């Protein structure tokens, strides 16, 4: 009975790490959705199968050696087996050949990661603990800034310039590409050519402080028309407050500490310390994936930002609960 329980437990423990892989490929490098991640995936698959085959061969050789030793005891007098010497030489040739193949495959995959012409320029700046995402353009009126969300057009290559505002972070969208560090005072870049529309999750992959774990990037790959429509919406200034409550909320926003850090395009709030809030309510998450984008969550966040994400840089701004509701009316209207 206890042996069975132990076996069940060990099976469960074995299954546990695999459970994470099954979540629809939102954050899986095994379900590659871009050219770059496919290049990495091919090297990975090649190594997996070759190394599995080698492992099986080694285990088989070991089993054969054990079996053969028992027989060899009976045939005393022979110290050297010519077959074994030849097999060892062949083994060395095989291993050197396979390693060369791995090196070549890895080198070619690396070339593929950096090949391609950029159709779109995006600058991602990692800060403690959120992502500032700027869509660049030669025309200044076609540039805009957003936070914690990255939208990419399918079948186009985006060049993502990677900067850091404070410490070293790492940009990792497993379904689209490998990791690339964001280093203060240094500019890195990755190319992303997504081939499958869908939602993916990016995550900071270099420990960057208290809230490193809650530093997610919401990535969505859209078709060309969908991306153009999203871009046009993002380029527009923030919608004007639609009713008296929201109007009062806007006045509160501009008159309080909110506007000292946040920008809302189309108003006098233009600070770039915190995330751009121009189209806040159109995002899917708050605080870099820490909370869902819902009115209750935003209310809790405004009431005490340090509760949901302790240590983040947003201070607790003292607000009367009634004023907070007015501010929520305004913020939830920023679509």
């Amino acid at each position: 009975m206890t042996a069975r329980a132990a076996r069940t437990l060990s099976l469960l423990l074995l299954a546990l790490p695999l459970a994470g892989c099954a979540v629809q490929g939102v954050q899986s490098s095994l379900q590659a959705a871009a050219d770059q991640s496919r290049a990495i995936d091919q090297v990975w698959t090649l190594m997996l199968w070759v190394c599995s085959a080698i492992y099986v061969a080694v285990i088989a050789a070991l089993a054969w050696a054990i079996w053969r030793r028992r027989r060899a005891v009976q045939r005393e007098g022979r110290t050297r087996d010519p077959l074994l010497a030849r097999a060892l030489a062949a083994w060395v040739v095989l291993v050197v050949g396979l390693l060369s193949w791995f090196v070549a495959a890895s080198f070619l995959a690396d070339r593929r990661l950096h090949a391609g012409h950029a159709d779109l320029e995006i600058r991602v700046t990692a800060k403690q603990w959120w992502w500032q995402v700027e869509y660049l353009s030669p025309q200044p009126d076609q540039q805009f800034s957003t936070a914690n969300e990255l939208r990419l057009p399918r079948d186009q290559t985006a060049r993502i310039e990677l900067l850091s505002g404070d410490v070293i972070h790492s940009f990792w969208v497993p379904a689209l590409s490998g990791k690339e560090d964001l280093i203060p005072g240094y500019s890195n870049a990755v190319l992303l050519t997504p081939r499958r529309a869908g939602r993916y999750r990016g995550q900071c992959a270099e420990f960057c402080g208290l809230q490193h774990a809650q530093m997610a990037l919401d990535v969505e790959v859209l078709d060309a028309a969908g991306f153009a429509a999203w871009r046009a919406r993002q380029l527009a200034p923030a919608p004007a407050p639609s009713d008296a409550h929201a109007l009062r909320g806007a006045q509160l926003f501009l008159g309080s500490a909110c506007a000292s850090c946040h920008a809302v395009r189309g108003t006098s709030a233009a600070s770039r310390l915190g995330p751009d809030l121009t189209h806040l309510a159109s995002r899917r998450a708050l605080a870099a994936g820490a909370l869902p984008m819902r009115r209750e969550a935003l209310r809790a966040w405004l009431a005490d930002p340090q509760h949901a994400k302790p240590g983040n840089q947003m201070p607790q701004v003292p607000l009367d609960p009634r004023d907070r509701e007015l501010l929520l009316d305004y913020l939830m209207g920023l679509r």
Partner: protein
Amino acid sequence: MCSRCLASALLTVLLAGAGGCERERREYHSTPAGTDARPALTSFRPGGAPLDAAPSALGRHYQDNAFHIGQGGRLFRSYNCNGCHGAGGGAIGPALMDAQWRYGGSIEQIHASIVDGRPNGMPAWRGKLTDEQAWQLAAYVSALAGNVSKAAAPSRRDALSATPPLTQLPAQPTQPGDASAQQPPPQ
């Protein structure tokens, strides 16, 4: 006798450890202010009683904490205090790292100067900053003038150096020549 020595030594070590806790303590929730918003700026006062120059408990709380001083430095750069005070050296605004204080150099007086503003240029930050941020800034400005505990002030800058260390700089030609033909130094 010796056991008493040992006990007192142990107590000293424990107290030193407790001091370290205070230095490193991070408070994520803003502490309520509840302080005198109008600290005296001069020693002129009716009756000529001497001014109590010791910082309040709240002032000490911010001055003795490395996290608050560090956050103050971050805010000092973020809100462009450098624009007028030039990294503490002063330019348009007065220097903050010397012994000259127009409106007082205690942490309470600095806090009041930040929150209320001062004539001829210093804007009032009341309502634009939370009170905790104003205290953190005041703690950093105190640190600029060397008026915080050495145990709490950081010995290392947060910002990157603009140039490589001098030992790492490549030798450059000293002959006069065409400036446009010269290569910029490598990064």
